[in-house]
Structures are given as structure tokens and as C-alpha cells.
């Protein structure tokens, strides 16, 4: 809030070049105008659709495979080289390749997001399993848990805190990737708004897009925090910090 006021002030005082740094009040006006004719809604919807579809497509298998790799040394040895080799490839760099394979429609964009999410949650889920306090495995074994019970009643819940970390990072990555691919190959979407603002040099439009991204990012973080508190209330609690 304070920053925005400072910005407004500097702009009004002529300290900022209005071509590159329009004052927030102008950006707000543009935003309201775009809201009025439905431009915001339409673009936002399509971006969110791509984002969440890609997110789900990437995180669900990513978490499962990550957990399996953490739980089973055999599976880890099998898949680790593949993961290590493919993870460092930048998702945006391979986007043209994805377009060749999946066409220039929605699916290539969704795949780019999915791939980005997949590796992040996999690595975090695997680390989550590795970090489980050994005593829980002892308890499970001593009290007769089968392999399946060990997985559902111990490994999965114990890894949840790190899985959430992975989800948080993946959500952030999804936003970056979706905007990125929308720069390059979309007519609609937040990235398209930004890019269009850039191409037509409608600077306020560009900033509207950027602010939309920022708001989404904040919203995701806040909502995720709430969910995390609900599902893993014990994590980070002082009582368990020493023993984790």
C-alpha cells in the first residue's frame, strides 16, 4: 500500500517517466475499464484453466512417483537417472518442442506447466520420505504394519509437510510458465494481456497484466497456507520441531 502511494506521488511529481511508469491510478482506471467489458474475466479464466489443468496433471503423478522413489530403494535406483537427466531442462526452452509434438493449441501449454510441476513435487515428495524420523518406521514394523499400511498410514502423512512445500513451489512455477507460454503463443490469457500491452505499447494494459499476476501469486500463497494449516496442523509446532 505504502509503496503504491509512493509510486503515485513520484509519478504525479514528474519524477517518473509516464511512458514507462504510469501512475497506479491510471493503471487502476484501465483495470476497471477492462473489467467492464469482460476482458479481464475472459483472459483470467483461460489462464487459470491452463494453470490448474497443468498443475493437476503434473503434481498428482509427481507426488506419487516421488513418494514411491522415497519409499523404495529399487524404484529410486531405477528412476533417479532419468529424473536427474530431464529435470534441469528449462521448461520454456522446450516449449517449441512441445508445440511440435502436441500442436499449438491448449495441450502444449498445459504440458509445459505439467512438466514444470512434475519435477518439483517429485523431488520434494522424495525428500519428504527421506526426512521421516526413523522411529516411525520402527513403530510401524514393530506393530505389524504391512507394506501397504506403512505407505498409507505412515509414509504418506509423514511426508505431507514437504509435499506442501513442493506444491507451493509448483504453483509458483505454474504461474511463471503459463504467463511465459502465453507470451509466445496465445491470443488470450494474462500473458497475452501483458504481451499485447507491450506490442501495442499500451503501457497501462501491460501493468494490469503484471498486477494480475502478482495478485494471483499472493492469493495462491494465502489459500495454500490455510489449507496447509488445516491438513498438517502439527508441522512447525514447537513441540514437534525437536523430534522431527
Amino acid at each position: 500500500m505504502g509503496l503504491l502511494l509512493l509510486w503515485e506521488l513520484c509519478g504525479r511529481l514528474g519524477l517518473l517517466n509516464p511512458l514507462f511508469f504510469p501512475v497506479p491510478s491510471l493503471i487502476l482506471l484501465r483495470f476497471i475499464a477492462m473489467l467492464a467489458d469482460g476482458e479481464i474475466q475472459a483472459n483470467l479464466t483461460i489462464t487459470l484453466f491452463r494453470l490448474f489443468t497443468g498443475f493437476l496433471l503434473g503434481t498428482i503423478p509427481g507426488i506419487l512417483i516421488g513418494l514411491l522413489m522415497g519409499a523404495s530403494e529399487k524404484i529410486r535406483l531405477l528412476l533417479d537417472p532419468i529424473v536427474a537427466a530431464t529435470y534441469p531442462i528449462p521448461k520454456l526452452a522446450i516449449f517449441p518442442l512441445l508445440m511440435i509434438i502436441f500442436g499449438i493449441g491448449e495441450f502444449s501449454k498445459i504440458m509445459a506447466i505439467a512438466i514444470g510441476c512434475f519435477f518439483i513435487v517429485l523431488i520434494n515428495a522424495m525428500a519428504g520420505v527421506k526426512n521421516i524420523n526413523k522411529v516411525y518406521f520402527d513403530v510401524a514394523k514393530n506393530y505389524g504394519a504391512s507394506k501397504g499400511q506403512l505407505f498409507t498410514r505412515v509414509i504418506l502423512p509423514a511426508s505431507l509437510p514437504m509435499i506442501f512445500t513442493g506444491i507451493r513451489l509448483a504453483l509458483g512455477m505454474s504461474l511463471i510458465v503459463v504467463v511465459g507460454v502465453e507470451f509466445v503463443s496465445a491470443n488470450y490469457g494474462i500473458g497475452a494481456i501483458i504481451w499485447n500491452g507491450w506490442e501495442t505499447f499500451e503501457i497501462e494494459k501491460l501493468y494490469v497484466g503484471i498486477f494480475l499476476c502478482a495478485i494471483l501469486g499472493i492469493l495462491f500463497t494465502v489459500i495454500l497456507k490455510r489449507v496447509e494449516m488445516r491438513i498438517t496442523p502439527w508441522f512447525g509446532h514447537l513441540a514437534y520441531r525437536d523430534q522431527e
Partner: protein
Amino acid sequence: MKLECRHLTKNFGEGEKETRIISDVNFEIKEGEFLCILGPSGCGKTTLLRIIAGLMEPTSGEVIFSGNKNYGPINSMVFQEHGVFPWMNVIDNVAFGLEMQGVPRKERYTQSLDFLKRVGLSKYAFRNPHELSVGMRQRIAIARAFVTNPAILLMDEPFGSLDAQTRLILQEELLKIWSEHKKTVIFVTHDIDEAILLGDRLLVMTSVPGRIKEIIAIGIDRPRDSRMESTPEFIMRLRIWNSIRSEVEKAMQEDTGDAEN
């Protein structure tokens, strides 16, 4: 029923770095007996308990259990780090062993609630472990071990990480619950007073490689409580300390010796 340990030996590491943790441990325990294993830190008593529990294989030797009564699992263990799952509520934790055995929910909740009452936690049954104190969590772990009705109860320094006052209270509580069920217990500790208070017999272990140095029968009548620590019979405490003292000093010398290397 009876448990026998024969010539138990355990080595860790390979080649040059191979160290023998316990060496040729022999003893047996009879039904209803409360056996304490006492020894300096690092003498292998936790390793010994884990082998008995089946969590670890001995390098050589065997653990033979013979019994014909109607028990649940052969053993249930209480760990020093309580190991109470933070993602389950209290009653689900206590009922965990029963759940793994396939006991239906209503039945296992009834049994668990019963033991929660005995450890004084029944009104916390549906709370979460992180809301409770460490002493309470250890009580949950104890209830969890009892409720599965094991042939033998294994306890690995369960009160080791508690403050002195909580420890005294839990020791008395354990005596109380134990006297109602007369379970067979193997209790590992480094605390002499605790061992004398709780045990029928004491196994004194040497420093590493751990061997049985002495087996001492505690001749003090039951029921016992912490007030007995000022009785003359407790004098045996001095004798036990003399026995274990040289082992503790040996263990400490080995530690500093390694540190210098």
C-alpha cells in the same frame, strides 16, 4: 512362556571398521517377570533390545520364544522417542497396533479407551499429540504397547528424555499398570534407581562390546513405590553402582580416546 537369548552377538561395519557391539549375551526371562537391563551409554543395550524385538538381525546367536498362551504379537516396544504419530489423534495412535492386526474400529476404540483411562488420558482421546506434553505422549506410547496384549513388553529407556519429576510420576504409573496385568517386561535403562524401583532382576552390562557382567535379583517386596528409595534395602544401590562404575568409566575413556584420535 519363556524367552531365551542364546549367544547373541552383533557386529556393525565391515572389514577394518567392524566393531562388536554385543558379545555372547545369554539370559532368559520367565512369564510375569520385570527384567531391567542396566548399562553405560553405548554398551549395546538398545541394540540388544532391537534384536529381541525383531527390528534387527543378530550377527550370530538366536532369540527363542516359547509360549502357548493367547497373546497378540510376541512383543510390543516403547521407544525412547515415544514415536507417537503426530498426524493421528491420541486414540488412533493407541489403537495403531490393533488396527494393523485388522481389529474393527469399534472394538479397538473400546480397548484403547480402556487403556487411556489407565494412563489418565481418557479425556484427551480425540485430541492431537502436538497439543499434549512430552510426558503425555510417552504415556500414549505405553498405552499403545499394552493394548496390543503382547507376550513381552520391551521398553527402551522410555523415560530417558523426560524431566526428573515427570519421570518419577510415570515410573509409579508404570508400576501401577504393570501390577494390574503382570506383563513380562524387559526394560532398558541407565538409571540405577529406576532399575531397582521397577525390576525383579537386573542385568548389568559391560561397556562395549556389551556382555552381561552380573545378574542381580532385587529382593524388595511388591507393591513398590518411590517412597521405598529411602528404605534400607535400597542400599543395594551402592553395590550396583560399584559394579557398573568401572564400566561407565571405561566407556568414557573410550569416548575421549576416540576424540583424541
